């Protein structure tokens, strides 16, 4: 079941968690994202028990790191995705994930409101563009991100020849790019 929501509203939730340790805000965020994080982890190969355990760790990390969220750099969904992905590499693949050096973001403490707004708008646009992709193209992009599958493994699962998969993913990304213009 998908619930429509306003993505800028999640930013308010994070602010409430960061500034007031607001459990009600966290509960709403949890209700929306925890089942999605669990689905992501299970599609990546975790069994239900491990996925549930990791989901709790991912959501607890959100609470603890609320002060590090920067709405001018990522949407809340993207931030949740990166935390869940890192947990996946750590817990499922037992590997370290080297991260790039942090950038110097200059002296200003508060991110610019216009930057926040345009980033959130672009994120919504991207979401709509992905939702509008033909089913088969969307499935393949989802597999590349969630399934932890190489393209040859995708070919085994879907029975499609490799060339077809590559061109479908390319087509999907081309469409996304055009939708973002």
């Amino acid at each position, binding site marked *: *079941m*998908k619930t429509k929501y306003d993505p800028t509203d999640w930013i308010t939730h994070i602010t409430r968690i960061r500034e007031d340790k607001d*459990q009600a805000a966290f509960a709403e965020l*949890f209700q929306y*994202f*925890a*089942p*999605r*994080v*669990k*689905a*992501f982890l*299970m599609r990546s190969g975790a069994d239900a028990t491990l996925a*549930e355990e990791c*989901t*709790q*760790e991912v959501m*607890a990390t959100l609470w603890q*790191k609320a002060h590090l969220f920067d709405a001018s*750099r*990522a*949407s809340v*969904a*993207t931030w*949740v*995705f*990166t935390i869940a992905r*890192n947990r*996946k590499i750590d817990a499922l*693949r037992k*590997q*370290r*994930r*080297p*991260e*790039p*050096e*942090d*950038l110097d973001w200059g002296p200003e403490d508060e991110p610019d409101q216009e930057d926040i707004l345009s980033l959130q708008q672009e*994120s919504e646009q*991207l*979401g709509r563009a*992905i*939702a509008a992709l033909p089913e088969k193209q969307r499935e393949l*992009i989802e597999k*590349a*991100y*969630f399934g*932890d599958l*190489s*393209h*040859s*493994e995708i070919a085994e699962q879907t029975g499609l020849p490799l060339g077809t998969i*590559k*061109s479908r*993913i*390319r087509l999907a*990304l*081309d469409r*996304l790019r055009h939708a973002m213009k």
Partner: protein
Amino acid sequence: MKMHNVKHHLTDQLLMAYSAGSLPEAFNLIVAAHVSMCDECRAQLASFDSVGGALLDGTDSEPVSQDCFAETMRLISSGALRPEKRSPARGDAASILPAPVREYVGGDVDKVKWKPIGMGVKQAILPTSKDATARLLYIPAGAAVPDHGHRGMELTLVLQGAFVDETDRFARGDIEIADEDLTHTPVADIGEDCICLAATDAPLRFNKLIPRIAQPFFRI
């Protein structure tokens, strides 16, 4: 670390796989190192992360157990949560190794434990997972890299100096993406000793990894 005029970039395929978290550790390391030195690839990576966020947002959900929220709150209040590490801090302008590489070495170039591999060339293998290998290479100015037999895919990121091969010239920040079809003899520039980070997929992963990263298949 100073930014550089990078000419040779990562493919979108590698950036996407890094964002998705499906690369071996050695390749993750070289991607993180290049992104540390290249704002263009950093921006592109952010857009691939956004695709991940949008997919997560639109995915079907998997119901969590009834006490999942309560367990999470317990985890928070217990303080037992493993702290997720922050992005490594930027080194000073004089550092040669980007921060993610320094974390594997335990410091900058002076801390690297080099082993000679012939013709004045030295290498140091970095401790990553076994599905691929990451090594630092030290090539004296003007020397050629001995044949190191890369089957499969090899990524080479220049950290100091420059090298030239049959395809082009690669300077600090540039990454060369070579597959098994490329036979090349990299030669370090005469001006300065060349230090590179190289990642190769181990023979065991050979067949599996090739389709994923060897053949560039899209430019977004």
